[in-house]
């Protein structure tokens, strides 16, 4: 009897496998989404979902009043301003270094604005699309002044703290291998643990993007005791990212970022916006949507750039608000200047 039952079970199982396994795949589903771009989804929702770090002063941080502030946060607000004319129509989600890519890939967040470095592997094998670079950074190393460490060679056989899931581990390994310096990496999941361990003295150095080092140094017990070496271990262009395969949404995000840069180049700020709306310069008029149909191809209003500048300001204002001389970070603009001032920010023509 048991044998008979076994035979029946196997037969039914085989039949179900054969019938369910050969489902034909939808040819149009490969690559592009279900047909509707994320732009439509976001507009219907009425709110943008933005993935940020939430733990990095200057880039994405929760201030004392409970509001999200930072460069990355303002980029998201700019996108919301362009879409809804309302910079508060954003929901922020804190993502750590490990979950950020999966969150974008699966569509849990619409845009990832989380000081993420643009690299070839993230563009291709992870399948993200990167909007223009909003912050040109590099990887650096922070040490204690009292240890008398002048260069990477002094870190031979020492411990270096870092965070997992970032380009930092690989860059550090590459640079140390290039110089032939053995060292011991101590890697943590949580960024706070990494810096706390360095502050306690377990590691002789901590490595991360220079902007992050400067930002976190201000939170250490005695910021003056720590020195950031001049060695630049890598290029770290930080850019917002969206999921691959959605051209329309990617164009929207891309051109909102360019709009902030172009606004600074044209000298348009949130203060003189009203005055410049009645300007006679055709470039300015077209940019602000007074004439022409700039937004049509993107699926936005023609004056989306004006909305961005009105609520958020141009790139220079955004930068100074979070990383400028008035803030505790006081980061020099360096490469983050317009191309006309010797930097790398260059927006294609708005025509």
């Amino acid at each position: 009897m048991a044998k008979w039952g076994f035979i029946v079970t196997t037969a039914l199982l085989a039949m179900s496998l054969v019938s369910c396994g050969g489902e034909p795949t939808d040819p149009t589903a490969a690559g592009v989404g279900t047909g509707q771009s994320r732009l439509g989804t976001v507009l219907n929702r009425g709110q943008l979902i933005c993935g940020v770090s939430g733990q990095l002063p200057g880039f994405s941080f929760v201030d004392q009043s409970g509001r999200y502030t930072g460069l990355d946060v303002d980029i998201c607000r700019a996108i919301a301003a362009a879409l809804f004319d309302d910079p508060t129509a954003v929901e922020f989600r804190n993502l750590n270094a490990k979950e950020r890519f999966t969150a974008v890939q699966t569509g849990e967040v619409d845009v990832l604005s989380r000081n993420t470095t643009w690299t070839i592997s993230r563009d291709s094998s992870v399948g993200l699309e990167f909007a223009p670079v909003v912050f040109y950074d590099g990887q650096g190393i922070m040490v204690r002044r009292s240890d008398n460490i002048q260069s990477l060679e002094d870190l031979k056989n020492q411990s270096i703290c870092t965070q997992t899931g970032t380009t930092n581990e690989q860059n550090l390994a590459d640079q140390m291998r290039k110089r032939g310096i053995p060292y011991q990496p101590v890697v943590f999941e949580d960024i706070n643990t990494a810096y706390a361990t360095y502050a306690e003295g377990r590691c002789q150095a901590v490595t991360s993007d220079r902007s992050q080092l400067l930002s976190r140094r201000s939170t250490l017990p005695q910021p003056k005791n720590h020195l950031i070496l001049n060695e630049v271990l890598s290029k770290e262009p930080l850019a917002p990212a969206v999921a691959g395969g959605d051209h329309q949404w990617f164009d929207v995000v891309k051109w909102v970022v360019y709009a902030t840069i172009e606004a600074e180049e044209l000298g348009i700020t949130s203060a003189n916006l009203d005055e410049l709306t009645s300007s006679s310069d055709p470039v300015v008029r077209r940019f602000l949507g007074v004439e022409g149909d700039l937004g049509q191809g993107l699926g936005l209003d023609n004056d989306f750039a004006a909305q961005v500048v009105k609520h958020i300001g141009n790139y220079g204002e955004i930068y100074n608000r979070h990383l400028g001389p008035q803030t505790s970070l006081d980061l020099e603009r360096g490469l983050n200047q317009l191309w006309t001032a010797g930097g790398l920010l260059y927006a294609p023509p708005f025509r």
Partner: protein
Amino acid sequence: MTRFPIQLKPFWRDVRFWRYAGQVLAVVAIASFALLLWNNLSRNLQQLGIQLGFDFLQSQAAFDIGETPIAYSPTDPYRQALLIGLLNSLRIMVVGILLATVVGVTVGIARLSDNWLVRQLAALYVETLRNTPLLLQLFFWYFAVFLNLPATRNALVLPGSIYLSQRGILLPWLQPNTVTPIWLACLGGGLVLVGGIWFRQQQRRQQPGSASRIWLVVLSAIALAGLLAWLLTAQPPLDWDLPRQTGAGLAGGLWLSSEFATLLIGLTLYTAAFIAEIVRAGIQAVPKGQWEAARALGLQSGLVMRLVVFPQALRIIVPPLTSQYLNLAKNSSLAIAVGYPDIYFVASTTFNQTGRAVEVMLLLMGTYLSISLLISLVMNLYNRAVQVKER
């Protein structure tokens, strides 16, 4: 008059048919559900343009690992890095399980001690460690204990050449030298000799009572082998590798990093608290009559516990003990919070650098599942050995 042949019941009136049909339906339902999930996954991945495949294991890892039990460099492929992670995990699991058992059994028996102070201390230990989160305990050990040790150049030196510093614990260790193979050969020869003698004894069917002579033979064979090796080489086979301060820091000896020590101590003490309660429950489940009878025979407390009560308590202790071992094995994945490079950490880094979420998760789940099933298997075999043998 002929009788009609006995009519068989129609199959739908046979209870056995319904039992089997129910089983078959359940199996089909589960299989279809699993297939549905799998199809959903592949369709979604196809939409996102992500291919499944394990070829990324061949690519260069390009990251360094802090502790490597075997040789590793960033040019090695990902599978080498994952192997290192696995070895690190196994280090923690094996040592952790052994230590947790020792500590847990001790504390469990202490909970039932006649001494009031010992009893209360054990109770305090168990209640504190069972009721606080493990991650919190790990952070406590890391930040409050190990990182408060002095820096390497001012390392604390304990007698026996043990160095304690922020970097970790350095213990004196033995290492093989040039004459070790000769010693090993002699010892091997001695063991072969012992094996031969044992085999001959078995064949002759030794009478009971003379089994103790076997140990005498074994020990004398090993002693003879040692003597022979000493005569040949005039040198001990292992050298002391003592830790010492050099210009560039501490060197030598066996290095147990702060991260490893934190994870080990944290996991051991946490799991031992649970094991202590299981041991206590097992011992208390042995009928009081056994205690009384053993005492009536004139045995002292210690012998009663060892010879009479504990072997009976083992039957109740072993199944929940298996669960605690599995908990320890899986809790070791918290290593990433304190910076110890175990399999979970290496898999995370691999996932981050290659973006292959599904494959890496499958690998991780497969690893933990295999290790856990292995532990369960061994413990179940042991369980069968200590079970009550019913006739």
